């Protein structure tokens, strides 16, 4: 497993306590899990994602991620409507391990209340929360 200072935590993302990341943008915000989360989970073997069009509140479960160790829930860092899901993960769940911020993205969400993005952690705060 990686040390905290070995983790890749991009500056342009926001992070939730449950280790989801969110990339703020004009249209829909992209969501995935952080390098820390994928590293802790180990080799990911299955990702279950919601249907496009589903509305979920902040903190609601939007899917599950399964590694050889355990099945973990994925929680909405913000509320909104699911605009897209990463269909590639069905065939290649390992993308979450190899490229958690790129090809390993999970869902895109039309954010209901942009203020919910503001309260998510930035990189320094998240790194600090991880004990780094």
């Amino acid at each position: 497993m990686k040390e905290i200072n070995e983790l890749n935590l991009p500056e342009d993302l926001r992070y939730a306590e449950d280790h989801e990341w969110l990339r703020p943008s004009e249209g829909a915000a992209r969501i995935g899990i952080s390098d820390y989360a994928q590293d802790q989970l180990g080799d990911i073997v299955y990702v279950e994602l919601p249907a496009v069009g589903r509305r979920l509140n902040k903190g609601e479960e939007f899917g599950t991620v399964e590694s050889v160790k355990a099945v973990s829930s994925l929680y909405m860092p913000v509320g909104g409507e699911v605009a897209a899901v990463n269909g590639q993960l069905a065939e290649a769940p390992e993308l979450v391990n190899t490229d958690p911020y790129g090809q390993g993205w999970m869902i895109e969400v039309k954010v209901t209340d942009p203020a919910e993005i503001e309260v998510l952690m930035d990189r320094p705060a998240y790194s600090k929360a991880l004990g780094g």
Partner: protein
Amino acid sequence: MNPSPGTTGLILNEPLLWERGRPGRRGASLPAADVPPSPLETELCGEGPDFPDLSEVDLVRHFTRLSTWNYGVDTGFYPLGSCTMKYNPKTHERQAALKGFAAAHPLLPAPLCQGALRLIWELENDLAAITGMDAVSLQPAAGAHGELAGMLVLHAHHAHQGRQRSKIVIPDTAHGTNPASAALCGYRPVAVASGPEGVLEPAAVEALMDEETAGIMVTNPNTLGLFETHIREIAAIVHAKGGLVYADGANLNAVMGIVDMAAIGVDVIHLNLHKTFSTPHGGGGPGSGPICVRRHLEPFLPVPRVVQDGDRFHLETDRPLSIGRMGSFHGHFGVMVKAYSYIRSMGAEGLRRASELAVLNANYVKENLKKDFHLAYDRPCMHECVFSDERQAPFKVTTLDMAKRLMDYGFHPPTIYFPLVVHGAIMIEPTETESKEDLDLFVAAMQAIAEEARTDPEKVRNAPHRTKVRRLDEVTAARKPCLIG
């Protein structure tokens, strides 16, 4: 100190039976036909099944060799947490093989199988006495099936009250089958977090409990091996809103004949005969998951019910409020005979003593290992204790690595990565079976592994070293499962 049981040895390879056979080889000589040959209609003819052609010794060696690759509770210590891998005395097998039980046809009319019916009736009464509940059904085939039966009873109760409910409260330490069983009955599981002491707090339940909530599913002792000390208060909160308390009895081995489930507010509890009542499981045989209920829920129990009438027994099906059948015939009858044999061998005092020793053994392991392993909740435990790999993390040694290394020492690994609320959990349930000498060997092995994690972490990371196969490729197996032979 004796050396640990693990050692190296010659392990024989064994091909598949289809690779072993040769056309024409036989294990038996068929007698000459004593009827004249007769032509067979062509539509009845075709390719025969693809069975290997084997001699008797081929077959005997095949299965004998495979049996040497196995590890069971008859081989050694098997501390698989929450599974209660206690020893299964061989007398149970003898009783279950008695001709009157083993050869009884399930369609026999009641007057011709009085003994079997009496055994069911008496076992139900014994389980009621052990739990403090009023009525029991032995029909469910195993634990999760018992959960489903229990939740169907709960559902039927609410329907009978005239208003169905939509949710059920389930603690975050629950077995994964709990929310699944509730969801099958149409209830939405709502998670409640356990408190800092590892047990449920009444305020947390009160905050979630409303008149849309059918009840709570609580495992007591819970999967952290801790007794839910606020259970009476929690049950009162649930009952005050018209909900019911479902108890998952998977961990009953800690409290047999000690906790009166009815007195702590439980309305329905399922038991695992294959755990607590010493019948083989884990590949050794089918399970049995009876449900025990309070009097007010008895009308909803599965049919048929075995009813006593003087000194005779008969089956009753006319129970209009029953949830119906949970399976064919009477459930796993052979398992019931073994559980009955266990209860009668032990007696009330023996069962109570077994629970006390199970708790003592778990606490002995906990106290002896807490210097080397991080203890998730440092307080007296019940029948199992939960450590984590927190102290080994600086050496990059994980729970999985240590579990694999334990195999080199000749022990079955404990349950790992469960319960989910403990990161890197190592869940050890020694059961009452183990002697102090055997526990000491296990403790010494765990301590040696903790030392290796500090001084030679590579060795632990590459374990097991002494097994027939080393690390399996679990990732490829999960990502690209091969589902055919």
